[in-house]
C-alpha cells in the first residue's frame, strides 16, 4: 500500500448509501451498499483486487470503500489473479474475511488453480479445522456487447468443484441480500454478478433489506434457496442470473397468448434447491431450463437431469433447454444470435407436446 494521500483522492461519493425509506436502487449500488454494510458490521471484512481502490472497480461496485474504510481494508493489488486468490486463502486462514474482485469472468482463470486446489479443498483437507470464509466476486456473462474475454458464463467450472458455494443473484433485492449472506457464510463463495444487470433498477426500502439481512431469523436464507419469481400453472421456466429477466419476459409474452408460465429463479447454483424446483415442475408438468452458458455438460444440463430423475411421473413432455450454443462467446455483433431470447424460449415452450394433453 503506497501513498495514501495521492491514491484516495478520486472517490468523492460515499460508499453505499445512507438514505432511508423507499428509493430507486441499481443492482450495482445494491452490491456496493452490501459491501459497505458488511465492512461496517465486521472489521475483518476486507476487499482487494484490481482497480478496486480509488477507482472503485471497473464497474464501480467498490466505489468509495477505500475513502470510507481506509486503504488497509479496500486496496489494489498487483495485477495477478492467482496472487489475489492465494493471498485471500492465507488471509482467511488468519482471521480475515476477504471479499476479492475478479475484474471479469475470463480474467478469473489465472486464479483457477488456487480456487480448485485450495479454496475448495482446504476445509476438507483439514477436516474442517481450517475454514475459508471468503467471497470471490465475478462480474460475469454477456449481453453487454463486450469484446472477447469479457462475457464468459464460467459457472460450470465452479459448480463442478465440490467445496465451492456458487451464487448468482438476478434482482436488485437479491444482489444486496445474497452478497450479505455470502460474506457471512462460513465457506468460500463464488459470487457471480450478471454484468448486464448492473444497471437495472428497483425501488426498495433499504432499511427493510438491512433488517432482513441482519435479522437472525432471515439472515443466510438466500443460500441454497430458489424462489418462484412468477407463479404460473402450465409450465415451469427455470433460470438463474442473467437469464431470469429473459425468462420473465417470456412468461409475460406467453400470458398474452393465454399460457401461464411459472418462473423459478434458482439463485443458488450450489447448494441447489431441488425442493423448490421439483415442487414447481410436479405442479406444472412441463419444464424448460434457460441459461446463457453453452449447454453441453452445463448447469442447465444438470438441472434437466435432476428434474427428470425426480419428476418423471409428473412430466407431460421431455424437459427442454434453451442455452447458449456450444461455441466460444461470440463477438458483440453476433451475441444476440447466441443468447437465449424470448422467442427461442417461447418456441421451445410451444414444443412441449401440448397436443398430447
Amino acid at each position, binding site marked *: 500500500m503506497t501513498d495514501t494521500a495521492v491514491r484516495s483522492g478520486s472517490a468523492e461519493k460515499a460508499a453505499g448509501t445512507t438514505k432511508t425509506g423507499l428509493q430507486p436502487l441499481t443492482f450495482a449500488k445494491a452490491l456496493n451498499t452490501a459491501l459497505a454494510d458488511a465492512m461496517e458490521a465486521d472489521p475483518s471484512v476486507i476487499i482487494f483486487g484490481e482497480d478496486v481502490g480509488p477507482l472503485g472497480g471497473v464497474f464501480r461496485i467498490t466505489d468509495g470503500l477505500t475513502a470510507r474504510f481506509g486503504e488497509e481494508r479496500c486496496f489494489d493489488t498487483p495485477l495477478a489473479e492467482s*496472487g489475489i486468490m492465494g493471498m485471500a*486463502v492465507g488471509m482467511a486462514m488468519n482471521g480475515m474475511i476477504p471479499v476479492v474482485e475478479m475484474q471479469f469472468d475470463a480474467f478469473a482463470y489465472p486464479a483457477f488453480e488456487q480456487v480448485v486446489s*485450495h479454496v475448495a479443498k482446504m476445509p476438507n483437507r*483439514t477436516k474442517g479445522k481450517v475454514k475459508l470464509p471468503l467471497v470471490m466476486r465475478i462480474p460475469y456473462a454477456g449481453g453487454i456487447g463486450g469484446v472477447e474475454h469479457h462475457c464468459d458464463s464460467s459457472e460450470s467450472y465452479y459448480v463442478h468443484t465440490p467445496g465451492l458455494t456458487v451464487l448468482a443473484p438476478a434482482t436488485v433485492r437479491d444482489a444486496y441480500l445474497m452478497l450479505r449472506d455470502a460474506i457471512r457464510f462460513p465457506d468460500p463463495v463464488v459470487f457471480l454478478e450478471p454484468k448486464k444487470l448492473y444497471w437495472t433498477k428497483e425501488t426498495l426500502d433499504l432499511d427493510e433489506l438491512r433488517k432482513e439481512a441482519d435479522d437472525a431469523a432471515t439472515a443466510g436464507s438466500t443460500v441454497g434457496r430458489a424462489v418462484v419469481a412468477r407463479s404460473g400453472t402450465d409450465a415451469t421456466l427455470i433460470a438463474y442470473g442473467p437469464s431470469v429477466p429473459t425468462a420473465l419476459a417470456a412468461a409475460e409474452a406467453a400470458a398474452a397468448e393465454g399460457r401461464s408460465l411459472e418462473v423459478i429463479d434458482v439463485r443458488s447454483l450450489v447448494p441447489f434447491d*431441488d425442493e423448490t424446483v421439483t415442487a414447481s415442475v410436479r405442479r406444472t408438468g412441463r419444464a424448460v431450463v434457460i441459461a446463457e452458458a453453452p449447454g453441453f455438460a452445463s448447469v442447465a444440463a444438470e438441472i434437466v437431469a435432476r428434474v427428470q430423475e425426480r419428476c418423471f411421473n409428473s412430466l407431460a413432455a421431455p424437459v427442454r433447454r434453451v442455452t447458449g450454443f456450444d461455441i466460444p462467446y461470440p463477438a458483440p455483433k453476433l451475441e444476440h444470435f447466441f443468447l437465449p431470447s424470448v422467442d427461442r424460449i417461447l418456441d421451445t415452450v410451444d414444443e412441449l407436446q401440448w397436443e398430447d394433453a
Partner: protein
Amino acid sequence: MTISTGNSANNQFGESMKPTGRSSDQGPTAEEYMLPSAQPVQLVGPSGEHIHNDRYPLPDGEALLSAYEKLVVGRRINDQANALVRQGRMAVYPSSHGQEACQVAAAVVLEKDDWLFPTYRDTVAVITRGVDPLGVLTLLRGDWHSGYDPYEYKTATQATPLATQLLHAVGVAHAAKLRGENTVVLALCGDGATSEGDFHEALNFAAVFHVPVVFLVQNNEYAISVPLKHQTVAPSLAHKAIGYGMPGERVDGNDLAAMLSVLGKAVDRARDGGGPALVEAHTYRMQAHTNADDPSRYRAQSDVDEWVPKDPITRMRTYLGNLNLLTAEEEQRIAGAAEETASTLRDGLNSEPEINPADLFEYVYTEKTSQLREQAALLADELSREGA
C-alpha cells in the same frame, strides 16, 4: 533507474543502507543491498572447520548442539519413513535425506506464534516444529489429505501443488500485519517450484505489501528428473530477489550453522518490519524424488557420490566433537532420542487407523447440502447391507 526498497533498509539481513545511493560513502547501492553473497554462505565447511563470515555470526554451541540433535532425529525419520514405504505401510514418501539442515533450521528459527508453510518434501521440518509425527504421515499413508490441526502448531498443511502455498503464506502474514501482530511466516519451496507463476506472484505481493515472509528455496538441483539448468538461466535463484525489490541470500544448505544464522537474520529482519527476503539453500536430493522414481534414468550415481562428503550431519558432528561440545555420552543420548522417534513412527504405522467412510461427506461444507445428505445415506445404506 532507482529501486525503492520499501520502509526499512538493512542489507543482507544486517547493516543499514541507503536504498538509492551510488557511492560507498552514501552506503550500499540497491544492488549491493539486494544481491546475494558471491558464494553461498558457509560457516562450517564439509570437514567441520569454522569459516569466519563478517555478516553472519556462528550460532553459539548450545544452539548448535540442540539443532544437531534434531538433525540426527530428522535423518532417522527419513530412514524410517523410507523403510515403512518399502514394507507397504505408507503409500509414498518424498525423502529429504541430505536436506535435513534446511528442514531443521526452517523449524527452529521460528517462534511459537510464527507460521511455517511446508511442502510434501518437508515432513522433517513439520515434525521438528513439534507436530505429532503420525499426524504428519497421515497424508502419505493415505488416511486423509492431512492429519494435523494447522492452528495448533501454526504449521500449514503440506502443499503438493507447487508454489501455491507461498501465496497463502503472504496472506497469513498480511492479515497478521493488518492486526498489528508480530508474526513471521516462513514459506518453503523447491528449486523447480521457482518456475511456477505463483512463486513470482507470491514474492511480488510480499514485497509490494511489505509483509514479514521469509521464502526459503531448497535448491536440491532436481525437480523430479529435471535439473536446475532447465528451470532458469538466472545467475542463481537468490538473484531473483532483486527483481521483486527484496534482498536475496544464498547459503550452503548442508551447513546447519549457516542455515541457522542466515535464516535467523532474515526472520529477525522480517519481524522488525524489514519486509520479506528470499533465501536459497544449496543442497542435494540424495535419494529418489519418491520411492516411485528411478533416478538412474536421469543422473549418474557418481554425481550423488560427490555430495556424500558434504553431508550435513557428518560435518556438524566433527565440528561439535572438536570443540568437545559433543561427547560420546551425548552422542549416545541423541541416538536414543532418534530411535524413540523411529519407534513411534513404526508403532503408529503398524496399527491400522480407524477409517470412517461417513467422513467423506462431513467436511465438504460446514453444513451438508441436501445432495450430500442423499449421497451419504446411499453409501451408509450400501455399507449396512454389506455388513448385514
